[in-house]
Structures are given as structure tokens and as C-alpha cells.
């Protein structure tokens, strides 16, 4: 079976003009993600695990390499080169990203934060909220919080809101950055069940997990990253 995502020789460096520095973030990353399977990224802090996910999501512009995404029609897009509009389309319909931190409107109720990706697709508010409520219940977020903006939630509650928001749109490719980092064991269990369920539904996942036992339990492939060699070279010129 052809992979949903194939990353070849991906590297990312940050060029910081103010400091006159070139900071390597990840280097020569190769990986594949299959439909209905989970690829786990492992490695020490600073190995560039999160950067790989952000490059695929195009929050970071990759410095070199290819990121080949195969869509429903078997059409392959190199995410590194795709137009901004194409990336926005794919984020809308195909590629989901659950980060460690919840970025959302400060004044929106949790239920609406979760329902938003469906609303943005033009689905009715009633149905979208119903789906959002199901997911929040499944993830054990207390019902009394659903009408409250998540700004005041605990880290674990925020994380579950974030996860529900990432799952509600049923992406084909899901990028997960430590989805269980601040959860207690019981809630972690629920998240693990949910990940297994969506895997069985055929979603391709690329994930970073804090706990090695989750990698053992959930990963179909493991890709280990090593921190890139620190470039000490200063930029010759700092043209603005």
C-alpha cells in the first residue's frame, strides 16, 4: 500500500538575523505514514520532533527535502512546495494537527471551540455541537465546563479540548504532538482507546509521545531522530 505521507531528507534551519545565527532544528529526516497506522517520532529533546510536525503542517517552512502527501484521489502533493491556498485546503479537509497547547479564541465556549472545524466546513451548528459534546464526553471533560471558555481550564482539560477539536473533522492524516503530556493515567487510557479507534477507522497518524509505553502500545513504526549538529557559523552578512 502506498503511504499517505512520505517525508524524504527533510531539514529545517532557522536563520535568525538579529542574532546573526543559523540554528539547525532537524536534519535529514525520512519517514512514512500509512493509512490506519501510527508512526511515532522518538528522540531526545532538541532532536526536532515538533519541528518535523510543524514543517508538515507548514507552520514552519522546510529548508530542504520533500513531504509527499497522497490525497483521496491518489494525487500526490509535495507539501514543501504546495501553494498557500493548497495548504489551507488540505488543513481544512485532510490534515489535522493537535499541538501541546491550545490556541483558540479567548471568548469562545469549549463546545464551540471543538465544533469550530465543522462549522468552518459549513455544517449546521446543531449537529456540530452534538458531535463536539460526544467527543468531550468520550474524553472525560466534565459537562459543567462545556459552556466555559477553555482559558481557565487545567492543562489536561485544555489538552483534551484540543484533541477533540483535532479529531472532530476526521482528518486523513493526523499530527499529534504529545497528546497525553499532562493527563492522568485514567484519562490517558481514554485517549489511547480513542487513538486506537480512529486508527482502526483508517486515519494515518504521526505522533510524538512523552511516555515510551505509549509508543510500544500504539506505534506501528518508530522513527528515531538525533539532534542536528549545531552550526556555530555566524552569518557573513545580515542583509535586511
Amino acid at each position, binding site marked *: 500500500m502506498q503511504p499517505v505521507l512520505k517525508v524524504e531528507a527533510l531539514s529545517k534551519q*532557522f*536563520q*535568525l*538575523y*538579529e542574532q546573526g545565527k543559523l540554528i539547525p532544528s532537524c536534519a535529514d529526516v525520512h519517514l512514512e505514514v500509512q493509512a490506519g497506522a501510527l508512526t511515532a517520532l522518538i528522540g531526545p529533546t532538541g532532536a526536532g520532533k515538533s519541528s518535523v510536525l*510543524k514543517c508538515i503542517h*507548514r*507552520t*514552519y*517552512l522546510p529548508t530542504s527535502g520533500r513531504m509527499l502527501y497522497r490525497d483521496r484521489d491518489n494525487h500526490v502533493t509535495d507539501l514543501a512546495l504546495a501553494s*498557500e*491556498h493548497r*495548504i*489551507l*485546503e488540505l488543513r481544512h479537509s485532510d490534515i489535522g494537527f493537535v499541538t501541546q497547547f491550545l490556541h483558540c*479564541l*479567548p*471568548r469562545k465556549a469549549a463546545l464551540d471551540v471543538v465544533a469550530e472545524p465543522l*462549522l*468552518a466546513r459549513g455544517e449546521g451548528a446543531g449537529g456540530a455541537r452534538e458531535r463536539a459534546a460526544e467527543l468531550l464526553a468520550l474524553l472525560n471533560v466534565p459537562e459543567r465546563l462545556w459552556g466555559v471558555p477553555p482559558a481557565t481550564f487545567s492543562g489536561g482539560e485544555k489538552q483534551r479540548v484540543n484533541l477533540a477539536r483535532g479529531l472532530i473533522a476526521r482528518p486523513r492524516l493526523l499530527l499529534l504532538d504529545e497528546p497525553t503530556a499532562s493527563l492522568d493515567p485514567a484519562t490517558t487510557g481514554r485517549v489511547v482507546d480513542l487513538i486506537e479507534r480512529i486508527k482502526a477507522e483508517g486515519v494515518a497518524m504521526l505522533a510524538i509521545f512523552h511516555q515510551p509505553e505509549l509508543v510500544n502500545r500504539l506505534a506501528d513504526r518508530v522513527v528515531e531522530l538525533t539532534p542536528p549538529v549545531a552550526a556555530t557559523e555566524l552569518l557573513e552578512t*545580515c*542583509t*535586511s
Partner: protein
Amino acid sequence: MNQMLEVRNLSKIHGRGCPRCFDSTGPDMDTNICAHCGSVVAAHGVSFDLRAGEILGIMGESGSGKSTLVKTLFFDETPTVGEVLFFDGERQWDLFALNAAEQRWLRNHRFGMVYQNPHLGLNFKVSAGGNIAERLLMSDLSHYGEIRERARRLLARTEVLPERMDESPKKFSGGMQQRVQIAKALATQPPLLFLDEVTTGLDLSVQARILDLILEIQQELGTAMIVVTHDLGVIRLLAGRTIVMKYGRVIESGLTDQILEDPQHAYTQRLVASSL
């Protein structure tokens, strides 16, 4: 999504201009004033696309040319050179090849503008409802009761108290004036809206509610918007894609999250670093 706007190589010089204006201004020269003739190059070589229903942010400091850009698109100013195509359903308009009457028709029917300064967008000699009626009249609606009802609904949608619709906007707070401007701009249900620093200078809580309103409207009506601001928070909240301008030139463009998290240009890196 369909293409809505194609801006190609738009330039605007304030003043008489000279052949050396473009070479002697811009980010590399660190000025937008031509050293040879004293003209101001407000914009030069600006090109971008906008899709239907999309929100594009234009970010930059004062004097970057971002306001000039939207004012030119709204026909408030005439460009020195450049071409803009506007795609509207089956029709295609070459904006700067149109005569004055056609431009006025587009302004009244297909575009909407919300200015930073409410004096530019509102007529303070007539009531809030009258301001909306003015725009509806220009778009060929003429039944009094119908106009009044539409004005009332629009003001209610933008959260202006209906009992104040017969007062002059002169007496309104800054936030309320912006709401009336938004209602007026939306009166003809234009597919394209220009927002020029609409929340600048307002109290934070008022800013937040106006931004919420703009997002709600975008979601309900699918209106495409060009949002001009120097405020990174506004860009982050509203825009899917962003253009960064300095001294009249586009120095960087990209997905908004990428511009904010991985800015490529030294100037954008400084802007983003100074906001955090």
C-alpha cells in the same frame, strides 16, 4: 475556492514622481521618500491573489503603504500603475479600466469598506439608520419601509441598539461607530470587504467584541476580507494568509501561522519579536 481578486504590480506615488522614484525608495533604501523629487512612494510592485471567502491580512508599520493599498482597491485613490481583476460570479472586472460610474457601482454594490476613522465611512449629519439607508438607496432599493427594516436588522446584527438608530453616530462611542460602519458596509451584502485598522485606538474589550463580530460575519456570510492592521493579534485572530509590507513594498507573504512562527525576513522577525 474561486479566485476573487488578482492584484498585479500595483504602485502609487504621491507627488509628481520622477524616473528614479522606485530605485531610490523601499526597504533597502530605508525610506519611502524619493531623494530626487521628494515624492512619496506609498506602494510599489504589489501583487497578490484573494480567493472567495478568504481573509487576507496586510501587516506593516505606519507608512508601509498598507492603507494606500486598500484605498486604491476601493477607488478612494487612483494607482500610478498596476492592474486589478475582480471576479464576481460570471463577470470579470478590470478595476482601473472602468469608468467612474462603473467604479461607483462596484463600490456601492460589491465592495464594502470600514475605515479606522469613522468620519471617513459615516455621514455624521444623518442618523445611524440614515447612513445605512444612504447606501441602500445607492444600491437601488427605494421602498422606505423596506429600507428602514433592513437598516434595523443590520444594526441589530452588529449589536447597535435599535432605539438609537435615529440618533446621529456623532453621539456614539468609538466602538459603536465602528459597528455602524460595519452595518453600513454589509448593507448590500458585498462579497468583498476592506477593513482598515478597524479596531485601532479602541478599548481592548471593545476591540475583542468587534473582532468576534467580524469573524462571525465571515462565517455566516462567507465574505472575503482584506484586513489592514499593524496589530499582530488581529492578524493571528482573523487572517489565514498574511502579507508584510515595508516602505511600500511587500517583503514577505505566507500562511499567517508561518509568518508569526517562522518569519523569513529580518524585518518580520523584528516585528514578531517585539510583539511577544
